[in-house]
């Protein structure tokens, strides 16, 4: 096609390129403004001393030193976040159990699936309020059940006790996320080719061997996704913690994200909060990397013949 | 696009819309703020000329909003209620003050005719 006499716009290829750019532009702008730019700005802000009233000053690693040496709440929040993350393998295992039970043409399987998954699309605030009420010392059903069963004589203030608060919040979070794990694992289970099991059965392999040699390895991508979601959840459980305990009693349930929120928007120390965010993000990337390695690289993807 | 009207995406919102419209029509016809009731004494006889006070529900407390008197048959009528949850109290100097009766409505200013009377504690 002769292009000498046609302007830039006249060439169809360029017109199509312009169209593609136009189509990509809105999404790219959103992601640039709200994902990429914030990431960079966080890093820069963490090395500055800045408040809305004063111009920025470069202070280097001062915020990080303050975090490391003087900020006890940071270390508590870090510990709590790690405990939160450590609870997710248990939740994933439980969800795997439920998925295995539901994975068949059992009558009513879809009803069970819906019931277990029902908790996931709910507002975390409402879930927090529901569980706060369930944990209540007087009107809550958990204390009532425990006392009726004779396991305890006096009610336990689950959300007011220093030792019980974090497990209680974690338990509520697991209740909500269990359905999500179950759905992911169910999808993974249903994509395992049945002939593998047939061949193993013919070879005389017992059920537990079939499970550990076939099911678990073939589920690696789904398990990896669940682990990543579990890690992300410990960073995003702001809503639940805020409404159930607001980090209390006395920082027992303080997570990194609640500490960031309080530092940034309650104490308006935006620069320090940015430094905390950078540390949190670095931790997230590091943990995902470790999980990837543990899953055998490539996000646990399974080689299929 | 056959039978697009049979899908749940159409049926459910339409049903909800119809129910909402029906409810709005019902509310529109019955929200005149009318409360009718009667007052009896401890013996069950109607009491004329008793003062009836109406309290509107605030967030934590009830605020007095108005008063009226019962007529010769012991009946009273309040016509300017704007709240959805009120308390009523009747009193005469001679027979004392009745207990506060809670009236909870389905919507603000719903017309209601009370079934139980306000009971004054003493007999003449």
């Amino acid at each position: 096609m002769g292009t000498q006499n046609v302007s830039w716009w006249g060439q169809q290829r360029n017109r199509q390129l312009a169209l593609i750019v136009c189509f990509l532009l809105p999404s790219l702008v959103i992601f640039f403004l709200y994902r990429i730019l914030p990431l960079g700005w966080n890093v820069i802000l963490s090395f500055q001393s800045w408040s809305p009233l004063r111009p920025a000053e470069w202070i280097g690693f001062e915020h990080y030193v303050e975090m490391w040496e003087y900020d006890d709440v940071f270390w508590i929040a870090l510990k709590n976040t790690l405990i939160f993350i450590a609870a997710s393998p248990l939740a994933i295992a439980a969800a795997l159990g439920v998925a295995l039970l539901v994975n068949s043409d059992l009558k009513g399987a879809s009803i069970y699936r819906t019931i277990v998954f029902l908790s996931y699309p709910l507002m975390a605030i409402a879930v927090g309020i529901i569980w706060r009420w369930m944990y209540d010392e007087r009107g809550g059903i958990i204390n009532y059940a425990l006392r009726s069963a004779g396991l305890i004589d006096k009610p336990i203030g689950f959300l007011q006790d220093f030792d019980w608060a974090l497990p209680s919040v974690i338990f509520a979070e697991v209740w909500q996320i269990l359905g999500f794990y179950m759905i992911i694992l169910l999808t993974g289970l249903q994509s395992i080719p049945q002939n593998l099991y047939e061949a193993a059965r013919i070879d005389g392999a017992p059920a537990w061997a079939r499970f550990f040699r076939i099911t678990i390895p073939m589920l690696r991508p789904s398990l990896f996704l669940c682990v990543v979601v579990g890690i992300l959840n410990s960073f995003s459980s702001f809503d639940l913690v805020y409404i159930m305990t607001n980090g209390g009693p006395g920082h027992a349930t303080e997570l990194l994200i609640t500490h960031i929120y309080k530092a940034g928007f309650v104490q308006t120390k935006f620069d320090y909060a940015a430094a905390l965010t950078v540390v949190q993000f670095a931790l997230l990337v590091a943990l995902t990397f470790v999980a990837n390695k543990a899953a055998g690289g490539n996000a646990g993807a399974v080689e299929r013949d | 696009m056959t039978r697009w009207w049979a899908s749940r995406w159409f049926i459910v919102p339409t049903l909800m819309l119809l129910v909402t419209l029906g409810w709005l029509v019902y509310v529109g016809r019955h929200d005149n703020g009318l409360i009718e009731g009667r007052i009896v004494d401890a013996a069950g006889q109607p009491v004329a000329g008793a003062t009836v006070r109406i309290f509107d529900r605030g967030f934590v407390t009830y605020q007095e909003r108005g008063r009226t008197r019962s007529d010769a048959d012991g009946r009273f009528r309040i016509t300017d209620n704007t709240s959805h949850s009120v308390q009523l109290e009747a009193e005469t100097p001679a027979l004392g003050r009745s207990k506060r009766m809670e009236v909870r409505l389905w919507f603000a200013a719903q017309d209601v005719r009370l079934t139980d009377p306000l009971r004054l504690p003493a007999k003449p």
Partner: protein
Amino acid sequence: MASRSKHATLLGLRHLTLMVIAFFMLVPFYWVIKTAITNENIYAYPPSLLPQNPHLFNFVDVWYLIPFPRYLLNSIIVSTIAVVGNVVFNAMAGYALTRQFAGRNLVLALFLSCMLIPFQATIIPAYLITAKLSLLNTYFGLALPMLSTIVCIFVFKAAFEAVPRSLIDAARLDGLSEWRIILRVLMPLSKPAIATNVILTFIWSWNNFLWPLLITRDPLMQTLPLGLARFLSYLEDTTGALYAFAVMVLAPSILVFLMAQKEFIRGLTSGATKG
């Protein structure tokens, strides 16, 4: 047959376990509904397992005593903006990604890397950016970060790629412009993708708490999650008003979820199958 009865017991055991699990998953719902409709002092011990003198007037109280209609309206507006924006922008971006162009791999890598950045890692600069754009405390500002999501872009991309090329080529031969091709050929054939996009965006924007918490200044601009959190301390009396509020807030989510279960699950698992 021994194996048949063994099979039957295993089946029975399976059902039993599933019913126990379902029971534990449903107890919180029951407990909160029971508290919302009961007419007794909810803090009395021992709590009754069944609602005493049930009545629905707590719901009426919630409607009038707190600005529930206002919060509902705000949530609906913000979610509508987010859903409409999402469908349009994601469809455009998904279509653009199905074409070959210079830098396509770069753009793909960019999108995939954005998936790794959780919203919580961006809150401080996102707040400052929105303030600079003078969009604080506005509906558009509330919806802005949610106007495009990577998962949904890939959902559209996969749906568009599944349309047979012959249809697209025939449309192009007929002289249709690119826009027309998208609107007339690709979108009608991608209805599941649109539904997935709508439901995912709706749920995410409806439940969003942290962003409205940061952005709204005016109590009247608050969305439902924010209103619920704000009234937590006000409504803690001996009646079930707070829990009636929670039930009213949850009802739309549950209704929408039950209607659109399949699409919602499909949207979530499409991320698992490596978009």
